[in-house]
């Protein structure tokens, strides 16, 4: 995953992005857009004969509109800086990927980023309402508008999650939310991931929609404790970290109900933070989980698969069997509320063959997810890494149809070639498009 591009362009304005695109196109050079480069599927990986257009310099907040609960930002603005700019007024931007202190809004749009709290609040696609986009011919167009229902096809739905294949976002209008009145957090430990998985299902079955439910297994807990010094017990099989938020009476009720369910599901211990600092520490532990793996393994391979929530226990057992069979440890830390697994395959790159084995196991995990009716990616995207698995999930006709969307925006496929689609697809001419003959237009002849 290391490629040296022909050139890197760092524009400061939409016009400069458009100019760079036009120059590249004139010379037939492919273009890879790049945000902060934090993606985990190689979506912003350069191509050797192409240019990279980095949006890092476009990092200004342009307008805050509390009346309409909207904010206009440039694509290079860091996710957390959006919330920081409006926190004093009691507002925030909901999507919160674990990399939110470094990843950019433009990259979030490309990947349709999620995060722990998208269980209740939805993904980037639910929170970005309009965007200024540079198309592959250098034209600048505004998608979406100031209303909840723009006219025509939902091109924002095409744009968000398109992984840099259809246009370069330079500015975006995002929804901002009033902070919830109250958030209750609790941390519960269990003998194994079976009980923890059952607990999640029962909480949801009780009609509770938590803001977030995160699960960590024993290996993940060990790494987090070593890296962040949280005082979590090491002799447990799994832990859940959960937020419920909303209005005060509702939250007090649901938090109490959820804790009761956890106890009945076999929780060893339930802890509630006594203040904001303790709560922040619990979440810091969870959000630094990937980086913490360095404490227990020289290298790790992070996977991102989705399964139906009710299958968590079964799938984790299959992953454990795979781990035992292949001989590499797998730590699990993930968004349990929506079945979004992040198995971390631990390996040592210095030992010949282990890297390839880790990658192989990552692929096997994805196949397990697909077999249980899930998906090959919940939030990290397909990028360069998972294009080969798209055929496990979709038929050739499905992929051809998705390619229609790409070709409508970028018929020359100048943007981000080699990503998402498993095999190069041409756009071709539109077969048999209906165009009236000149004689028809003149009223000399008709059809039928």
């Amino acid at each position, binding site marked *: 995953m290391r490629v040296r591009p022909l050139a890197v362009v760092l524009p400061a304005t939409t016009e400069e992005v458009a100019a760079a695109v036009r120059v590249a196109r004139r010379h037939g050079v492919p273009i890879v857009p790049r945000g902060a480069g934090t993606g985990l599927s190689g979506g912003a990986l350069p191509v050797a004969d192409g240019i990279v257009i980095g949006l890092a310099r476009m990092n200004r907040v342009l307008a805050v509109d509390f009346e309409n609960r909207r904010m206009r930002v440039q694509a290079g603005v860091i996710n957390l800086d959006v919330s920081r700019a409006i926190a004093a007024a009691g507002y925030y931007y909901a999507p919160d990927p674990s990399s939110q202190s470094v990843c950019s809004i433009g990259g979030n749009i490309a990947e349709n980023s*999620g995060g722990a709290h998208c269980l209740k609040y939805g993904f980037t696609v639910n929170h970005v309402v309009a965007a200024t986009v540079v198309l592959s011919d250098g034209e600048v167009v505004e998608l979406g508008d100031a209303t909840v229902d723009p006219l025509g096809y939902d091109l924002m739905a095409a744009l968000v*999650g398109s992984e840099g294949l259809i246009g370069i976002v330079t500015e975006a209008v995002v929804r901002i939310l009033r902070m919830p009145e109250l958030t209750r957090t609790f941390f519960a430990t269990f003998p194994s991931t079976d009980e923890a998985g059952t607990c999640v299902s029962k909480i949801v079955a009780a009609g509770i929609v938590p803001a977030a439910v995160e699960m960590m297994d024993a290996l993940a807990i060990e790494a987090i404790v070593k890296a962040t010094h949280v005082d979590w017990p090491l002799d447990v099989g799994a832990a859940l970290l959960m937020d419920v938020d909303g209005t005060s009476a509702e939250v007090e009720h649901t938090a109490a109900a959820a804790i009761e369910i956890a106890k009945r599901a076999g929780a060893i211990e339930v802890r509630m933070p006594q203040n904001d600092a303790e709560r922040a520490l619990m979440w810091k532990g969870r959000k630094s989980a990937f980086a913490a793996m360095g404490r227990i393994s020289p290298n790790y391979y992070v996977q991102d698969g*989705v399964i139906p929530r009710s299958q968590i226990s079964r799938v984790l057992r299959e992953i454990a069997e795979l781990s035992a069979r292949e001989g590499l440890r797998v730590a699990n830390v993930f968004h349990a509320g929506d079945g979004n697994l992040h198995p971390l395959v631990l390996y040592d790159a210095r030992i010949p063959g282990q890297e390839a084995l880790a990658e192989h196991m990552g692929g096997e995990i994805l196949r397990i997810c697909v077999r249980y009716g899930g998906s090959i990616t919940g939030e990290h995207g397909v990028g360069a890494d998972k294009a080969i698995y798209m055929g496990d999930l979709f*038929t050739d006709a499905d992929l051809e*149809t998705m390619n229609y969307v790409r070709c409508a925006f970028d018929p020359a496929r100048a943007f981000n070639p080699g990503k998402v689609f498993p095999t190069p697809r041409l756009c071709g001419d539109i077969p048999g498009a209906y165009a009236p003959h000149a004689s028809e237009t003149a009223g000399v002849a008709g059809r039928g």
Partner: protein
Amino acid sequence: MRRTQARPPAWPDAVEVSTASFPGTQVGTIFTPGDLYEAAELMRSAAELDQTVAFAGGGTKLGFGYPPQQVDVLVKTERLARIVDYAASDMVVEAEAGITLAALQSKLASHQQRLALDAPNPDRATLGGLVATNSFGPRRARYGSLRDLIVGVSLIRADGSRVRGGGKVVKNVAGFDLPKIAVGSLGTLGMIATVTLRLHPVPETSLGVRIAACTIGEVQTLVRDLIAQQLEPAALIAARWRGAYALVVLFEGFAAGVSEQAERFSQLATQLGLRPERIQDPKLTESIDEAARAYGNVRLRIAVPPGALEKLEHEALSVLAAALDDAKAVVYPTLGIAFFSGYADARTDWAQAVLQARAAVEALRGNLVLLDVHDATFAEKVDVYGTLPPSFPLMRRLKDRFDPAHRLNRGRFLGGL
């Protein structure tokens, strides 16, 4: 308020699907496939014969968009009404396009679950039609529209191929988002065959607070206040009648939270000098909504930025009410959406009023759409959609890729797509 002597009948909420269902366009042949294989076969055969195709579910939205230019084949989805897969513990359901919203909800209710969509006419409106027209009700304020609820779709393409996008899990970013692209596409990109949706628990209880008389300015203030107070209503609906508004705010959830929120909202209203009353009727918002939306023979949907409610009233709704008989409107204040209905009055130039209102709405960066057109002459007087968005050339290119010969619902969508 004027009354014309011979008022024309209100447009129907639903029409019987027949060869005469579309205003001004005679349908060639109607087919009612019994399963999705038959439907795909039918689409393939239409492609081979270069026939134009339209779709009908419960007949509640056949007046949407421009009248189709030509319909050789009309596909009725009423026999495609199966629940394909209902994973109650995962709160996800996949159903065929022809199932009615009411039939689906009744199945889900047995597991204390629901699709959080309170679109009008649930006994007739079908899932496919709801997706195609992006239909919604006042609970959109809390739960979003179908765009926020759909997680998967299968389409039968113009060439007869069956394809799908999305999946059966709520969180999924594999491939382009065909499910959301299908929402609001009016059957112009493919036949919607099945839809997969995320579900919500049926709330333990609900409680409404009604303010029988207030102004639009007071509605705007109350919305601002309840957001500042961090209240989380499930639905808000302001019903307009003769220039005055009645506001209903509905809270849903667990009993303790609902009654606390209703109390706090009532206090906000009282502080403004208004008289809030509590109403225990979970169907309350639906009944207000339907009373105003299934009405009249001129029906409009207006979308503006949600902070522009006063301008919406003074520059659009009051202008329309002055030119149309017995006008009613409902405003969804947190969304900036209004549905307006009234009777075309022979003595005033209603079309001129619609154009004036549209100009004002477009100046607010909003849009005004003519709905339910059951008389082809209406669409000649007032364009259905108004000014095309700057991204329209991209929309045309999207349509050209999905349906190169423009055979699906020809001419019915924005810009004649």
